[in-house]
C-alpha cells in the first residue's frame, strides 16, 4: 500500500515532465530483472540468433540443401568435420543424400519457427476472442463456449493435432495435401491450443469486468464492443503474452512431433522434426549425427524460448516468485 504522502502531487512536481514510454521501459522491473539474470540474457541472445539465422537461412547457410544440382552422392553420410573421414566443407556432416546437416538445420528451423509463429498467432486470435466474449457476456454464451473448451481440454494437444491432420488427409486429395500440409499443420496446432488463451482471458475478463473502471465506462454509455476493445483487452493482454511465449515452445514441439510421426510437413520441405525422423533410420548404423544435431538444435531453441517464457511469467506475475 502506497503511502499517501510519498506520491507526487500537483503542487510539488507539477512542472516536471512525465517520463516517456521509453524512459518508463528503461526503468521498468522487466528490464531490471532481465539485466540481473545471465541465464535469461543468454536465452534471449540464443533465441534472437536462431530466429535470425533461420529467417535468413538462404543467405547464412553454407549450402543450399534443396538445390539438387549441387548435391553429390559422393558426399553422402559424411561425419562431422572434426571426426575421422569428415570434410571441412560440411561442419556437422552430411545426410544420406549428401546434404549439409548444418544447412538443413537452418532451413528446417525456418519451417519449424514459421509453423510455430503462425499457429501461435492463430490460436491467440481464436482464444482471445472466445475468452473476451465468454467472460464479458457470461450466461449461456459463456456456458456453451466453456463447455466446448472443457471438452477440448480433456484431450491433449498432440491428439487433437493428429486428428485434425488425419481428417484433412481424408478430405483432401493426396496431391493437394502436399501443398497445404503446412497450413493444415498450423490449423491443427492452433485448434489444439486456443483453449489455454480462452480460459485465461475469460477469467481475467471476468475479474476486470467487475472492476469499477468498466462500470464507469458503462455509466458513460460506451457500447460493449468499445469497452471490450479499449478498456478490457489492454488489461488482459499481460498473461496472454506469457502464454504465447510458452505456447510458441510447445507449438514447435508439437510440429516436430507430428513431423516425426510422419504426419506433419512433407519431406520436400523438411522441418527439424522431419530431419530427426529421417535420421532416426540411421541411428542403428552409426550415423548418429543425422539425428543428434537437428535434435540438439530443436532442444536449444525450445529451451531458450521456454526460459524466456518462464522469466516473463515470473516478472509479470510477481505473486509466483
Amino acid at each position: 500500500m502506497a503511502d499517501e504522502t510519498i506520491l507526487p502531487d500537483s503542487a510539488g512536481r507539477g512542472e516536471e515532465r512525465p517520463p516517456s514510454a521509453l524512459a518508463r521501459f528503461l526503468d521498468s522491473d522487466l528490464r531490471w530483472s532481465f539485466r540481473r539474470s545471465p541465464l535469461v540474457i543468454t536465452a534471449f541472445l540464443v533465441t534472437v540468433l536462431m530466429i535470425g539465422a533461420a529467417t535468413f537461412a538462404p543467405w547464412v547457410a553454407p549450402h543450399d540443401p534443396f538445390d539438387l544440382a549441387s548435391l553429390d552422392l559422393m558426399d553422402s553420410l559424411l561425419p562431422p568435420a572434426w571426426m575421422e573421414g569428415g570434410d571441412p566443407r560440411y561442419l556437422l556432416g552430411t545426410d544420406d543424400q549428401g546434404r549439409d546437416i548444418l544447412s538443413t538445420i537452418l532451413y528446417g528451423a525456418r519451417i519449424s519457427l514459421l509453423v510455430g509463429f503462425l499457429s501461435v498467432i492463430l490460436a491467440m486470435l481464436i482464444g482471445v476472442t472466445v475468452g473476451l466474449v465468454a467472460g464479458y457476456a457470461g450466461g449461456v454464451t459463456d456456458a456453451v463456449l466453456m463447455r466446448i473448451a472443457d471438452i477440448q481440454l480433456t484431450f491433449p494437444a498432440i491428439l487433437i493435432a493428429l486428428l485434425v491432420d488425419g481428417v484433412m488427409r481424408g478430405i483432401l486429395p493426396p496431391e493437394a495435401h502436399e501443398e497445404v500440409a503446412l497450413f493444415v499443420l498450423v490449423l491443427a496446432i492452433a485448434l489444439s491450443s486456443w483453449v489455454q488463451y480462452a480460459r485465461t482471458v475469460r477469467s481475467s475478463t471476468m475479474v476486470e469486468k467487475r472492476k469499477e473502471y468498466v462500470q464507469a465506462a458503462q455509466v458513460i454509455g460506451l457500447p460493449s464492443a468499445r469497452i471490450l476493445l479499449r478498456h478490457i483487452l489492454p488489461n488482459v493482454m499481460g498473461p496472454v503474452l506469457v502464454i504465447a511465449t510458452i505456447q510458441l515452445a510447445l507449438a514447435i514441439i508439437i510440429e516436430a512431433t507430428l513431423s516425426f510421426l510422419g504426419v506433419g510437413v512433407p519431406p520436400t520441405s523438411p522441418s527439424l522434426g522431419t530431419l530427426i525422423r529421417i535420421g532416426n533410420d540411421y541411428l542403428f548404423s552409426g550415423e548418429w549425427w543425422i539425428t543428434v544435431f537437428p535434435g540438439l538444435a530443436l532442444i536449444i531453441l525450445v529451451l531458450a524460448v521456454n526460459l524466456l517464457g518462464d522469466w516473463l511469467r515470473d516478472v509479470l506475475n510477481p505473486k509466483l516468485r
Partner: protein
Amino acid sequence: MLLYIIRRLAQSVLVMLTVALIAFTLFQFVGDPINNMVDQDTSLAERERIRKELGLDDPVIVQFWRFVENAAQGEFGVSYRLKKPVAELIAERFPATLELSIISAILALGIGIPMGVYTALNRERWTAKLFMTLSLVGVSLPTFLIGIFLILIFGVQLRWLPTFGRGEVVDLGWWTTGLLTASGLKSLIMPSITLAVFQMTLIVRLVRAEMLEVLRTDYIRFARARGLRDRAIHFGHALKNTLVPVITIIGLQVGAIIAFAIITESVFQWPGMGLLFVQAISEVDIPVMAAYLMLIALVFVVINLVVDILYVVIDPRLRTES
C-alpha cells in the same frame, strides 16, 4: 453431494456423446465407407445394395444413434487397412499401452510431487534452483527426442537395454503382460522413462507454484503466528490445501500420458494402441481412428470422475454444500 456426483456423471455422458458425434462425423464426411469395403469392379447396383444393407441411406440421426449403440457395445466395424474387426485389434493392444502408461504415471507422480514440494519449501536452496532449471529442460525436451537419445546411449552405444518391442510377454488369456518376464521388464525401462519425463516436469512445476501460493495465504501466516511447528504447517496445512487444485490437473496429466504414449510407442515400436492409431492416421483408417478416440475419451471421463469424487473426499466445502 450425491447430486454433485450425478451432475458430473451427466456431464461425462455429454462429453462422450460429443466425442461420438465427432467420430461419427469422421465416418460421414471423410471418405466413402463403401469404397473401402468393395473392389474396384463392384457394380453400382451392388454398391447400392450394400449401402442399404448397412443402413447408410437412413436419416443421419438414425445412423448416429446406431453408431452410439454399437460404440457402447465396443463395436466399431472393420479396419480398412488390416481388414480385422477393430474391437479385436484394440483388445490385442490395450494391455501394452495400459502397462506402459501406469508405470509412467507412477514414475511421474512418485517423483514429481515430492520434488515439487521440496522446491517450494526450499526455494532459496541451490538444489531447489537446480531442480527447477532441470524441470525447465525437461519441459523443453520433446518426448520423441528423449526416446531417441535413450536408444542411442543405452541401446546402440552401451547395448544395455532393448530398443524396441515389449520383450517376452505372458499371456493370461484376457491380458498379455510384460511385467512377469525379465526381458519384458527390461523392455519397459526406456519407454516408461521417456513417457514419464514430460509429465513429471509439469507436475513438479505445478505442485511448486500451487504450494507457493498456499504458503502465502493468511491461514498459513496465522498458523505461524500460533507457533505451530514447520512440519505441521508445511505438510499438515499447506500440502493438503495444495492438493485440492493440483488433483484436477494431475488427473488430466495422467490422461495425457495415455495420449502421449502414441509418440513413445512410435519411437520404441511398442505394440500398443498409439502405434495403431498413428498408422491409422497416415492411412486414413477411419474405424480405428474412431474407436481409439472413443476409448481415450472414456479413459479421460473415468479419470475425471475419480478426480471429482476425490475432491469431495478432500474438500469439506463441497461435502456440505447440499
